[in-house]
């Protein structure tokens, strides 16, 4: 079955959703473990993330790959659930209050999902209270905050402050066009990712650090 798994990875890399769907159907029908299918998806998106980070591909290519992945996930998720296979960790994600931009946040959500995290996407213009409520509800290990506007950077700072005050144990990572490592440190975030692919590495790093 290995060639078919490989085919699925390749379909994801190229963003070919019809092929991705077909390969997923065939793999599941042949009784391949859903975790193995998930690994093939992850391998495909991992490669997409790597090329995105290296400036070899850009937002449209990532979006089209993510759409192919989602087509496959729609078939795969019910099967994963039925065998009791759930992601180990949850990431809550959203764009901070006052900011309506979502392309970057969506890219991060898709990449993180492909890396086999459960993703709770709260959307855009999310209040600190809504973030904190979601953290409590989903017992998330990591929260990802996004801001595109320089003017919503203070809202990001306030969200981090309120999360800390709430006492919820979570690792906070931040990103978005105007955000820098320096700003992330200043506002007391645990991690910073300059792009969607790095966000996956950063989430893994933060979780490893919590476990250690």
């Amino acid at each position: 079955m290995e060639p078919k798994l490989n085919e699925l990875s390749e379909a994801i890399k190229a963003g070919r959703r019809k092929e991705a769907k077909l390969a997923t159907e065939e793999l599941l029908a042949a009784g391949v473990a859903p975790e193995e299918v998930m690994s093939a998806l992850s391998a495909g998106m991992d490669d997409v993330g790597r090329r995105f980070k290296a400036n070899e591909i850009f937002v449209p290519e990532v979006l089209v790959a993510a759409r192919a992945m989602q087509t496959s996930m729609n078939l795969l998720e019910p099967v994963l659930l039925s065998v009791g296979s759930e992601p180990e960790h949850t990431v809550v994600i959203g764009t901070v209050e006052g900011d309506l931009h979502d392309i970057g946040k969506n890219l991060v959500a898709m990449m993180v999902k492909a890396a086999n995290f459960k993703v709770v996407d709260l959307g855009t213009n999310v209040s600190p209270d809504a973030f904190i409520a979601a953290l409590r509800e989903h017992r998330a290990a990591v929260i990802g905050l996004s801001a595109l506007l320089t003017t919503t950077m203070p809202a990001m700072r306030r969200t981090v402050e309120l999360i800390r005050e709430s006492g919820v144990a979570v690792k906070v990572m931040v990103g978005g066009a105007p955000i820098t490592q320096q700003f992330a440190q200043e506002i007391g975030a645990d991690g910073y990712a300059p792009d969607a692919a790095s966000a996956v590495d950063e989430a893994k790093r933060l979780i490893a650090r919590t476990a250690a």
Partner: protein
Amino acid sequence: MTGKEILMAALRGSKTPRAPWVPFVGVHGGSLIGLDATAYLQSADAIVSALKQARDLYQPDGLPVVFDLQLEAEVLGCQLAWARETPPSVSSHPLQSGCDLSQLPAFSTEKGRIPLVLEAVRRLKTEMGDAVALYGLLTGPLTLALHLRGDEVLLDMFDDEDSVPELLDYCAGIACQMADAYLDAGVDVIAVVDPMISQIGPGHFSTYVAPPNNRIFDHVRARGALSSLFVCGNATRNLEAMAATRCDNISVDENVDMAALARIAAAAGKSFGGNLQLTVVLLLGDENDARRDAVRCLDQAGSSPGFVLAPGCDLPFAVKPENLQAVASLVRDPYQLQVARNLPAKVDSDDFADIEIPDYSAELAVIVDVVTLDSAGCAPCAYTVKAAQEAASAYGGAAEVREHKITGRDGLGYMKKLQVTAIPSICVDGREAFASIIPDRKDLIAALRCAADRK
């Protein structure tokens, strides 16, 4: 040459006596007159009054009249979410579920807020049109297409190759109408602002985005005006493709290496500009940060003609006016430029342990440290040193004047340890007393007496 003439010459790629300066005052205009962005972007009176203030404060060679990439989208049926400190955001995409252009309302420059922007252009033309070049900013085709159809446009590039050129060409048609209205109202430069270009690669740019942009640039050129392609965001990978379009000028954001753009623009025979850092420097930094960053832009741009000093993108609402004023005066003053070039780095791990400053309280004489660029080569520094020496001898008590030049380690060490805020600066017994001002003799003598009393 007037500032406007310098700017227009630079935009044409000619050598100019100094770099022209175009602060992109958008919503920041609101903060200058105490209005939020929502009120500001809906009033011609507010825009005119703020830009008159911006002219007086920032001595610009050119100014954008309004920096709002939602003007056209609003007329075309996108809903807007207004904000206090930013231009409105588009919150609905009328073509999201299908790319049927006939569904859109008919576009006209007499609809929405466009008439008030054009009124502001006409009034500003009368107020300052001789001295300051006015930029008319319109929404670039890719960005307008994203407003209308959402990020589906980016997926269409893979699935529906025919719909993308049709939609982008439609957006170019809107842009040409905007350009005509702006030029009729009196703007000097048409800026096609297409920040979404920073999100795609050169392949998609050349296939889909360059042709509609070229249609706009050709249109502007046929009307005898100049065009600039503004890309906010990281456009590094597209610089060569952008330089291959038929615009006159390329303006880029802070993530682009200005030295790389200078080379690419020179090879393509285009003028270029940018890219002061908006947040870290202009919004959150101080005047010296702004000066350092202006020097960075100017030095990276190098000696190629046609450089326009500007922020990377729309200035943040609450940007500090003094930071822009620092840039404005530096552009006109080679001396200040030279001082800024010698400023130590912001994060300087050098603690200058080898430069020992005296224990002032233990010195018998009052010590006057004058921190200068170099009094031999700079007039303000020479006057300051002379004023200090004259005051010291008129004072009558024990006083000693020491010059520290920041062209060397000694001066930099003193600058850091005495926390000097400007050059030239006079410190009396280790405390900065007169920063960037030549004091009146009696004031300086009073300061010396004060210091002597503290001993």
